[in-house]
């Protein structure tokens, strides 16, 4: 190697190495400048992006469980609808967004206030429902204006729907937004938009029907667009519930009630206490409550003086009238006051103290034993025996037969009614019991108040030879065995044969309603809603006269079918229906016949 060459080579190498080094330094400079751009110059922009680029937790609402009738017919389910939501976080001014939305669909003032109130309460990124179940033209309008309205969000949801409108409405109830107290309930804590059951089964079984919420973590960029789903935990559908109601009977019963302004029909299977039908009129259409706006419909319900929201079968209290006589007779028999041969003479009235107590038959029934007294519904016979039995013993038997009780069934707001006793009166009015009140109570008037379900249970206990039948509304798979009230055996046999005569022997009060296809037994009842004046009583035709509906008597009938081995017990109450024999008994006959036909 020559040194000169060597030297030349090294000087080239040095120069090139230096150039290379300069190149590298300048590249580092470019990279440094780029980092300056991102980290210093545009830092604010990226900081905002970073902040907005965040995880949202979106609650996935569960699908509410369905409700079925005893034959698996769907009574309540869910349909897909479109709802409009607002997400407070995504709008600078929630008021402005709502104003803009208001121009497409009107938002009423109270809803608006609720939305704003809620927006302060929930987490900023949680959506709040503004409208639900919007129609197609509204959907179209909002969809096309969505860009201009900040924070608006359309989503597909499920809406509760009831397949048979008002047929089972009282029993099932309806769902609606939770009110202020309900929002605090633990099972809806993270689901402010959840519709919860407000009445009936829907309310009692909220916990089962709601299911479990799921959630998904989503990543949203600065424009509010979902970039990706990070995790997802699906919601769990609520449990389905099957009730004991047989829709066919329920529909049939409602049809029968149509002819009357208000009433109730309860049909029970005495073997297991299953309520097969518990219809009450007037009723309401839950679909019209759920579908917003519902204000007009809601007001029409509230203004209706017949109070369609009242579930008469469990909330309506009526004097049981003569249907209470079985209880009195049983009390008389078990306490040895009467037997089948004991007779009392009915002259149409008896006196006690300075008052007269009338039989419904002004000329009297003549000599009556217990069987005749029930068959012909003689009041005087029961006046006579009640004097000897005393109110406390009667009320004890009444309670054993299921009266004056609230049942352990998942229906809210059952009315207990009144089975009076000395203690009860002392407590309630701080007054002692008057002997005359015993007489009035013995024919199911005065203080005595029962609801139609209680009457059906009472009838079930009689029909089943004293089994302590408990009503049941949720279908159970296992058989139920009720304990037997042994001490009433003998008495019940006497009463049952008397109830047979009521329907199936001439002179029986319900003889006109006897059925050959579905023979049944029962007892009529006609309960006064006001005191009949002496003048009225003396005018022979006061019962036949057309009197104002509100002043008419309630018509009642309780009965069971078949006669030999009873399976069904019924209670029919027609408000201001006139008389049990003329109005309630024919309805019972129809129900029994219809039910019997279903069995085949």
């Amino acid at each position, binding site marked *: 190697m020559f040194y000169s060459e060597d030297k030349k080579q090294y000087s080239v190498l040095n120069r090139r*190495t230096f150039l*290379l*080094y300069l190149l590298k330094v300048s590249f*580092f400079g*470019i*990279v440094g400048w780029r980092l300056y751009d991102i980290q210093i110059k*545009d*830092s604010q922009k990226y*900081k905002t992006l970073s902040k907005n680029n965040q995880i949202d937790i979106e609650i996935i609402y569960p699908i509410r469980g369905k409700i079925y009738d005893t034959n698996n017919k769907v009574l309540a389910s869910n349909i897909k609808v479109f709802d409009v939501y607002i997400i407070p976080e995504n709008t600078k001014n929630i008021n402005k967004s709502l104003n803009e939305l208001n121009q497409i669909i009107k938002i009423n003032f109270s809803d608006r206030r609720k939305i704003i109130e809620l927006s302060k309460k929930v987490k900023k990124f949680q959506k709040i429902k503004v409208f639900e179940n919007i129609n197609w033209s509204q959907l179209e309008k909002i969809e096309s204006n969505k860009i201009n309205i900040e924070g608006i969000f359309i989503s597909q949801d499920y809406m509760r729907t009831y397949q048979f409108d008002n047929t089972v409405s009282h029993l099932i109830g309806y769902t609606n937004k939770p009110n202020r107290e309900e929002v605090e309930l633990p099972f809806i804590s993270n689901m402010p938009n959840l519709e919860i059951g407000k009445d009936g089964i829907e309310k009692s079984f909220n916990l089962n029907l709601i299911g479990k919420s799921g959630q998904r973590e989503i990543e949203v960029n600065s424009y509010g667009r979902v970039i990706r789903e990070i995790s997802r935990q699906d919601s769990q559908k609520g449990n389905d519930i099957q009730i004991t109601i047989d829709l066919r009977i329920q529909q049939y019963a409602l049809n029968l009630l149509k002819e009357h302004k208000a009433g109730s029909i309860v049909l029970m299977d005495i073997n297991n206490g299953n309520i097969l039908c518990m219809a009450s009129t007037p009723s309401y259409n839950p679909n019209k409550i759920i579908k917003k706006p519902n204000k007009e419909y809601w007001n029409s319900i509230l203004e209706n003086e017949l109070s369609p929201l009242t579930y008469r079968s469990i909330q309506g209290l009526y004097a049981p009238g003569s249907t209470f006589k079985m209880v009195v007779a049983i009390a008389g028999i078990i306490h040895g006051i009467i037997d089948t041969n004991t007779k009392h003479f009915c002259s149409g009235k008896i006196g006690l103290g300075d008052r007269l107590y009338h039989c419904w038959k002004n000329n009297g029934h003549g000599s009556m034993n217990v069987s005749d007294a029930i068959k012909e519904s003689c009041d005087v016979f029961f006046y006579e025996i009640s004097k000897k039995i005393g109110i406390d013993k009667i009320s004890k038997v009444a309670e054993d037969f299921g009266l004056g009780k609230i049942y352990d069934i998942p229906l809210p707001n059952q009315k207990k009614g009144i089975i009076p006793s000395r203690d009860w009166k002392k407590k309630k009015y701080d007054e002692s019991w008057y002997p005359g009140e015993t007489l009035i109570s013995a024919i199911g008037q005065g203080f005595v108040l029962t609801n139609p379900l209680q009457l059906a249970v009472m009838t079930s206990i009689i029909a089943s030879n004293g089994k302590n039948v408990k009503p049941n509304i949720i279908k159970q798979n296992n058989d139920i065995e009720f304990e037997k009230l042994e001490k009433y055996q003998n008495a019940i046999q006497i009463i049952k044969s008397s109830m047979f005569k009521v329907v199936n022997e001439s002179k029986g009060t319900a003889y006109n309603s006897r059925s050959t296809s579905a023979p049944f037994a029962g007892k009529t009842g006609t309960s006064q809603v006001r005191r009949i004046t002496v003048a009225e009583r003396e005018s022979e035709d006061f019962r036949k006269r057309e009197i104002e509906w509100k002043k008419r008597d309630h018509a009642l009938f309780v009965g069971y079918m078949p006669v030999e081995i009873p399976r069904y017990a019924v209670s029919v109450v027609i408000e201001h229906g006139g008389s049990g024999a003329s109005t309630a008994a024919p309805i019972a006959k129809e129900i029994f016949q219809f039910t019997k036909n279903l069995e085949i």
Partner: protein
Amino acid sequence: MLNKIRNLNYLLIFLVILISFIGAAGLYSAAGGSYNPWASRHLTRLVFFIFLAIILALINIKFIYQFAYALFILSLLLLLSVELIGVFGKGAARWINVFGFSIQPSELIKITIILALARFYHDLKFDEIKRIKNLFFPILILFLPFALVVIQPDLGTALSIVMLGILILFASGIRIWKFVLGFFVLLLSIPLSLNYLQPYQKDRIFSFLNPEADALGRGYQLIQSKIALGSGGLTGKGFLEGSQSYLQYLPEKQTDFIFTLIGEEFGFIGTIFIILLFLLLISVCFYISIKSNHIFGRILSLGVGSNLFIYVIMNISMVSGLMPVVGIPLPLVSYGGSAMLAIFISLGLVLNAELNGNLKKLNNA
């Protein structure tokens, strides 16, 4: 021997350890404030590889010179075997098992390319360089590994091999017009090579051109990476406070995107500090190169420095959106054994070159 140890370039060693520690801190943060799974292994590797580098520094440079071609051929065979028996990685077969270690021959080949070129130019008389026929061998040295890497396909490594070759050839004294010619040839071949690109590689390039168009897909990494860097600002969000990376926005935050995590947590000050450390490290390599009395040591040192430079510039350009995401780690900082091993081997060779800088003759002849 002791003398040699005493004369080791401790500035270089210090820089390497410092950068590796910064890497470990980043990995600790990337794991959500945990040594596992990355930081602990990163530090373990650091310890082993430091010893390996020092051992490499102490062996006789004549051996290295002698075996330069042999090592190149060996690594070329390894690379070839990846095509045949490679384990499948992410859309590409790049790893091979050597004594139970999963290594990437494409990382090692860069070092042996440097060695081969260093030997070639050491052996070549200065006058000979001008001759066209003497371009054939260096281009073959570059083209064979390039071709193998391209068919893997590993676009990032292929690109870095080309760049490495250009830098070394430039330094060794090739005439400038030849580079200009080569540049035009390359330019003309771009449309042709686009046909050979895998769909995912095309995606990467197109998403680089317009990241916002496909925020969900490929552009996603880049947007998130820029958000992480930018939101760090001047001083950063603080150690372990980088929300972007914790919220899992950053993909592969422990490997290719570790720099953005550091940028988010330590800000502009942090990123510039790292860049300066690398610049200093590369400067040391160049200083050693200039100081060296033989061409082999010179080319070797500036080759290693250039290799480092390519890694750093490509990685940072990639995460800051200056170039497409091609999958190049940040040396000593990113998690990954092969690249780290390659860097330490190459730095060991630079240390060796410095210790043996005074030798005039490397061949025994």
